[in-house]
């Protein structure tokens, strides 16, 4: 396992495109997190011009709600597309450069090859979870008064939701990459599916009467997006009278993981059978 990781590190360490995309991802993520409150309050100001009773400004960085607010933003489709594209590139490169052939010729088994890519996905997910955990903790602590350890860690379980979303979206990307084998085609189809095909399907499958439990909940990408749902900002909850997600739901976590497991199985069977 360490050997496989060592090989993967060599493949990534001096790969410029990987670092450029990772950098863009970080900038996008950080800018989004740091500007979110400002942008929401801008919208609130805009709405207030037409409302008789003005809405109060929101604060999203205070503990413990900051865990959900930030993990929610970090798992929207516009943000998750970055790690997905990175994984697609890392996998389809092996087919473009035919290095998967060379790795197998040199004595790597096909199962080890899939496993090495899974390890990288796992590692990226763990690393990002740790980074986001630290970042969120710092933001939360600096915006909250009356700190206690219990307050800090309350709702930090949303980080587990972030980890599951990161892991599963990358497995979906791995699935596209291994089956299509072509970088451009994989990225195009993945993006098309994420931003057009599934939203359209979602729209038609969504039952107007049952908001929560339509078949649309089970669409693969939607399952990933629903792990951490739209945050319940307490002030808005009071005003609007709706309560959204309060903590992670086990079933919502299990659905994308089940999809990921099936996809890994399909990739495994396909790679075992197909010619390289």
């Amino acid at each position, binding site marked *: 396992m360490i050997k496989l990781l*060592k090989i993967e590190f060599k493949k990534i360490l001096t790969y410029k495109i990987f670092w450029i995309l990772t950098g863009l991802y970080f900038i996008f993520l950080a800018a989004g997190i740091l500007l979110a409150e400002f942008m929401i309050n801008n919208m609130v100001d805009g709405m207030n011009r037409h409302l008789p009773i003005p809405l109060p400004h929101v604060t999203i960085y205070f503990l413990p709600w900051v865990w959900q607010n930030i993990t929610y933003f970090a798992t929207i489709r516009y943000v998750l597309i970055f790690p997905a594209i990175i994984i697609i590139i890392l996998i389809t490169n092996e087919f473009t*450069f035919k290095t998967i052939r060379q790795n197998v010729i040199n004595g790597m088994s096909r199962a080890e090859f899939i496993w090495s890519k899974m390890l990288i996905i796992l590692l990226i997910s763990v690393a990002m979870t740790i980074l986001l955990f630290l970042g969120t903790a710092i933001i939360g602590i600096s915006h909250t008064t009356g700190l206690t350890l219990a307050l800090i860690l309350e709702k930090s379980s949303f980080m587990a939701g972030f980890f599951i979303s990161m892991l599963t979206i990358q497995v979906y990307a791995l699935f596209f990459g291994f089956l299509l084998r072509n970088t451009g085609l994989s990225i195009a189809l993945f993006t098309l599916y994420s931003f057009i095909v599934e939203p359209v399907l979602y729209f038609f499958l969504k039952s107007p009467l049952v908001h929560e439990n339509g078949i649309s909940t089970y669409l693969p990408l939607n399952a990933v997006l629903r792990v951490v749902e739209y945050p319940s900002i307490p002030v808005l909850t009071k005003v609007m009278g709706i309560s959204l997600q309060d903590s992670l739901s086990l079933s919502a976590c299990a659905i994308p993981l089940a999809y990921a497991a099936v996809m890994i199985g399909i990739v495994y069977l396909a790679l075992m059978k197909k010619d390289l």
Partner: protein
Amino acid sequence: METILSINRMSKSYGRIRAVKELDLTVKRGQVFGILGPNGSGKTTTLSVVLELIGADSGGFEWYGWPPSKESRKRIGSVIESPNFFPYLSAIVNLQIVADIKDLGYEDIDRVLQLTGLYERRNSRFKTFSFGMKQRLAIASALLGNPEVMILDEPTNGLDPQGIAQIRELILQVAAQGTTIILASHLLDEVQKICSHVAVLSKGVKLFEGMVSEVLSVSDSFELAAPDIESLISVIRRHPAFRSLTPGTDRIQVYFSTEVRPGELNMFCHAQGIILSHLSERKRSLEQHFLELLDQNL
């Protein structure tokens, strides 16, 4: 001699195209085994199957008498088709990845880079290499860790004449150390110069297998002349191994069905009262043999 690779009745089709048909092949330790055939004859398919890149439709193969595994592949150094490396990684890092996969240390990397003349460019990225240098890096990676077996698919493809000579010299050196080499080529000249054994493939069928020296020593025809050409012709027609002849104005070309030595032939003519004024043996070259074999099977 220990059997390194044995292929048994192996077949592989791509859709309706039969790439390899019921191929049997045995390579023993220390042989420099040439697989010779024109483009599309099934050479690369055969090598891809024994390296488990593609699956055979039927039949099988064994390395060292065992079913294939990743462990057997680690003991083989291979170059198949084009050189496949990460374009953005240096020669050294690309070879480190190969060493990692094969469970080798990095201490052999400098040696193989020097052998292939790439040491000066060891820190350059693969994509900056010329095609010839890429091909040499592929050979360097195959040499890594002194494997017991090397599989080389068109190893001199794309090299300049000097590069071709260097690589052939290198292969001969490696072979002299006792490494078993399996070399696929469409160049007869290459097989003739490098290989001890040869199998000729055409359209996925093995036409011929044997030692290169045997193929070369087969005497094919004699050019004969005598003062009386007419009686020479009538005498030679009575030779037990006679097959055919092409008459000329002052010389005739005679073909025999079995091997005939020049001395025997001279004695035979002399015993029949013919004094030969000219006798020269025409050895069949591998190329002629190859082309004949292909012709017969077209």
